[in-house]
């Protein structure tokens, strides 16, 4: 599958739809600027209705953007129909051709390219091996399990050796276990084939597990483009912080560079470029703090529950409720509802917005 890898670039891409109820136009995607590196695995992530599918369908060519230009490699592709674009899409509903067997489904794109029969046979067999479906060539699509159908959809997209693979929530129809093993599989195959992949999901753990980069969207706007780690530790804003993992927000003021004042207590915290003296919100991940009898920030326990790997606390900081997950509770003191305690923050876990 040695083929030139292609990147994708979106420049000021917007898509306008008409709301069928009110009849008003609105931006489903607004001014998206994305640069997707050749060979990388990028995930579009965001809540339902934020414009992920729309973005993906514009790249595939099923929708036309209202503003901006899309490039595949260096070629502008706005005016190309889907069949002329070097992309292949894996659909959420698999979209296998129900009147063909597995072999013909996978061979469909190759036949369109008028390849030699023997070449087709070899390619199909190879790709079915790759996705672990050897020997199933003659089954009809409805004789496969959901996971197997998913693999056929993947094989069908891979076999035509597209420059870019597009996935629209390909795993959402599968059960949780299969989802985890399939996503590892997809990642493995993508890396083996070295194809650029753009993957849509609203499952943040899926996104973090497989992506080189995540693109977080909300209401048509791109909120952040970064590695999963960056998005988790240095979210651009409250939306991203809240969407990627769980987050508590503590009201604070910036005391000095990398020092904030929460409820009267001075705490070390990365403040980035925030102005000294101004108000800020400190992002605290539930696993980023633990409770003890002494420490930095005085709190009152309002909820305490043993969860196995961790003790789940809700504690009140002033009038803000904070969720804390204290891992390995066996080694530490367990606080009961009504107890007073102190929060201790692990190093490098706080981030002020």
């Amino acid at each position, binding site marked *: 599958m040695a083929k030139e890898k292609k990147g994708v670039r979106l420049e000021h891409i917007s*898509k*306008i739809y*008409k709301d069928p109820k009110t009849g008003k*136009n*609105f*931006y489903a995607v607004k001014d998206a600027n994305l640069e997707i590196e050749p060979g990388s695995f990028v995930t579009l992530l965001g809540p339902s209705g934020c414009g992920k599918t729309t973005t993906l369908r514009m790249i*595939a*060519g*099923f*929708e*036309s*953007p*209202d*503003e901006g230009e899309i490039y595949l490699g260096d070629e502008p592709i*706005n*005016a*190309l*129909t*889907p*069949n*002329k674009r070097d*992309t*292949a*899409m894996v*659909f*959420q*509903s*698999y*979209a*296998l*051709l*129900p*009147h063909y067997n597995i072999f013909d489904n996978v061979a*469909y*794109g190759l036949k*369109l*390219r008028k390849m030699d029969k023997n070449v087709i046979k070899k390619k199909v067999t190879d790709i079915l091996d790759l996705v672990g479906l050897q020997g199933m060539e003659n089954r*009809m699509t*409805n004789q496969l399990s959901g996971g197997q159908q998913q693999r056929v*959809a993947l094989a*069908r*997209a891979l076999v*035509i050796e597209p420059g870019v693979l597009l996935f629209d929530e390909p795993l959402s129809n599968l059960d949780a276990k299969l989802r985890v093993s399939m996503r590892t599989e997809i990642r493995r195959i993508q890396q083996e084939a070295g194809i650029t992949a753009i993957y849509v999901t609203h499952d943040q753990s899926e996104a973090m597990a497989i992506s080189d980069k995540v693109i977080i969207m909300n209401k048509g706007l791109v909120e952040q483009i970064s590695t999963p780690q960056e998005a988790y530790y240095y979210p651009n804003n409250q939306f991203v912080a809240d969407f990627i993992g769980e987050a508590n927000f503590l009201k604070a003021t910036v005391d000095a560079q990398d020092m904030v004042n929460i409820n009267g207590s001075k705490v070390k915290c990365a403040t980035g470029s925030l102005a000294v003296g101004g108000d800020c919100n400190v992002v605290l991940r539930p696993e980023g703090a633990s409770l003890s009898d002494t420490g930095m920030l005085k709190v009152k326990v309002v909820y305490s529950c043993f969860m196995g790997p961790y003790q789940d606390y809700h504690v009140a900081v002033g009038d803000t409720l904070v969720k804390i997950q204290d891992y390995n509770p066996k080694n530490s003191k367990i606080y009961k509802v009504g107890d007073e305690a102190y929060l201790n923050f692990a190093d490098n876990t706080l981030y002020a917005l």
Partner: protein
Amino acid sequence: MAKSQSASLDRKKLLGDPIMVTTIVLLIVFLTVFILYPLAILLVDSFIGDHGLTLDTFKRVMDLSNFRKAITNTLKVGFVVGIASALIGLLFAYVEEYVKLRTKFMGGLFKVVSMLPVVSPPFVLSLSMIMLFGKAGIITRFLLKIYDNSVYGFWGITIVQTLTFFPVCYMMMKGLLKNIDPSLEEAARDMGASRFKVFMTVTFPLILPGLGNAFLVTFIESIADFANPMIIGGSYDTLATTIYLQITGAYDKQGAAAMAVVLLVITLLMFVVQKYYLERKSTATLSGKASRERMLITDKSVTLPLTIMCSALALFVIMMYICVPFGAMFKTWGYDFHLTFKWIKLVFTKYKGLKAFKDSFVLSLIAAPITALLSMIISYLVVKRKFKGKGFIEAVSMLAMAVPGTVLGIGYIRGFSGGLFGSGILQGLYGTGVILVIVFVVRSLPTGTRSGISALRQIDKSIEESAYDMGADSFKVFMTVTLPLIKDSFLSGFVTSFVRSITAISAIILLVTPSYLLITVQINEFAEKGSYGIACAFATILIIITYGSVLLMNFIIKHFGTSRRIKVKE
């Protein structure tokens, strides 16, 4: 916020697809020339006189007392037939959905009734009505000893049309009743309402818009019907027959055009109300799929009378159909009941039965695949594609549904006898088999398109998109994905269009030339003359053909159809 860029990109993408563009253009030309143009020419004919715009032609035909009478006659018949058909249809649907049918026999009866509208040639019921209840009718003359009973006129038409059209209402009402959530009715039952009370206060209000819809659909069918009033109307003329006589008897083409406009306006009004108001409303009130099985009525005092009523009616209709082949085999109907092949022999020897059979068969067989393919293409474009002109294509092909055959026939005469706009272009079509085939296609297009559209809506759009995405162009997608997936719909469109064509008369009778003998035209001719034996013999051939084709289609779908092998994902 302007959507101009996406619109222009969509246009560019479309233009990059020459087969698509050609198809759309050809389709628009076809629909314009063969549906819109003939109707437009009627307007021109009736509004434009020697000195420009005028209402003179209308004044003239409105002054004809027989025309005014025809209008009231038509509306009267349509109204009564509409109500009767809707109610009988409701009765059948109610019995099927709510009453426990014990026997296989009953199930079979209902199935036959539901199939009748598909296979029934138009005037079969009129013929048998005359043979059962007319002057020489078996029932009137021999059983009841009434020697001068007249079936011609208002009641004849009304009864025959009702029996012809109620199965359609039955199928419509059945669809509605099926979708009523049983818990709605059970809640009312729980609160102590009687069955009848529940029906009147819960079920009936829910289906009222649907009932109105069924009424209007029948109303339109009734006023557009030509064959039955022609044979059993006697001196009771309706609009369709009056228009026919105006052109074939009085040779008044302009007057006929004006009359056709009147008929068209009535049907179009009804159609618009039906399509855009009632059809929407009739489905909106229902909550979709029934959540679970309905408790069927088992109470004998309810089931018995209902079942008996339905069976009696169904058996009566079936008897009327059976009557026709016998009419072809009795020596002299009503007088001499010796079996004979005289009529059938006469049909093939003296009356060129073989040619009639061949002409009808071949022309319909040419029209059928064209119609089926065309309606699948239209459905595909309407459901799956976005482009300018789509609204036009959808509207015009649906419009054809509301155009009575007689009106279309007059439109073709006026529009094509001198070529397009009298210019001589396409004049060569007139009087040939080609124009007959085109009429067949136009007449069956709306039904085919409707079934294609509903079949395509079932198919997840991503299936076609995936093929498109892998590199297939629109033509390839249509041929390798869409068409195979709606094979059943295509097949049934093929057969329906074949049956509709071979049984068509209203438009065809105005356009056929002596070089083509069509079975339906022959039946009409001999029934008019009172030669019922010959008419019955022709009709029997027709019934055998239509019934045979439907059986064949069912067989093919059952054994080779797509739906058995593939369950298309939602």
